[in-house]
């Protein structure tokens, strides 16, 4: 059973239809969230994490080597 609709609510609903954006804007927004989704998906993959971990380790090793060469015996 549907609830009775208040006449004022019915008037407001009928007078205020949903509007939509221009097609180009819809497509641009879709492309933006798809890119975000792809990026997010990649960032959460184990391969990406392993690669990021390997790069961080390599950077840390280089830093240690530089500091060692400057101040080491």
């Amino acid at each position, binding site marked *: 059973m549907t609830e009775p609709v208040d006449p*004022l609510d019915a008037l*407001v609903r009928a007078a205020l239809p949903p*509007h*939509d954006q221009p097609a180009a804007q819809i497509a641009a927004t*879709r492309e933006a*969230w798809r890119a975000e*989704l792809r990026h997010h998906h990649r960032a959460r993959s184990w391969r990406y994490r392993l690669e990021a971990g390997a790069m961080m380790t390599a950077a840390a090793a280089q830093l240690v080597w530089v500091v060692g060469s400057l101040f080491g015996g």
Partner: protein
Amino acid sequence: MTADPLVTLAGLGRYGAVDAVVERELVARLRRGDAGAFDEIYAWMRPRLWSFLARMTGRRDVADDLAQEVWLRLARNAHKLADDTRLPAWLFTVARNLYVSQWRSAQAARALAGELLPPEAVAASPFEAAAESQTAARVERAIAGLPPSYREIVLLCTVEGLAPRDAAAVLGLTSEAARQRLSRARAMIEAALGDLARYPGGEP
């Protein structure tokens, strides 16, 4: 047997409630990063969210930016959605928070600029000119003339058909406070519309 989400969401208007099982399935697919689920919710909720933002901000360009940010946030946070997330309420909450931030920034900029800026335009709806009838234009104007806190509850409950409980959650209010605010907003609209509200079909 569960309903096919595509079939259930197709043609769903503003006031149709999505079956709870279908909504849970959609949430589960969003959590897995299923691009098809994003397409479905984008097609279903895009006009509703954008219309809400355009009527709150009064500007199409600002609504475009805020709407884009809502969808980016969904893409970023979908994996964190709870199983029982009510998707329209979640999306409207993000949209409303973004609107509030934008409004505060605009207020701060106006305060800093002082009298350099021209006075703010009288409330106008971005859709008033496109209204198909005098009645629609008058209603658009009446809604645009409401203070933001009253406009948002009318747009969520009356226009978008959110349950008062969901609207209260979006606005961070108790159900009772939301009901009272909606009642006051209705009285303001009635006063703004005059005879039109009393005799929607024309004077007796």
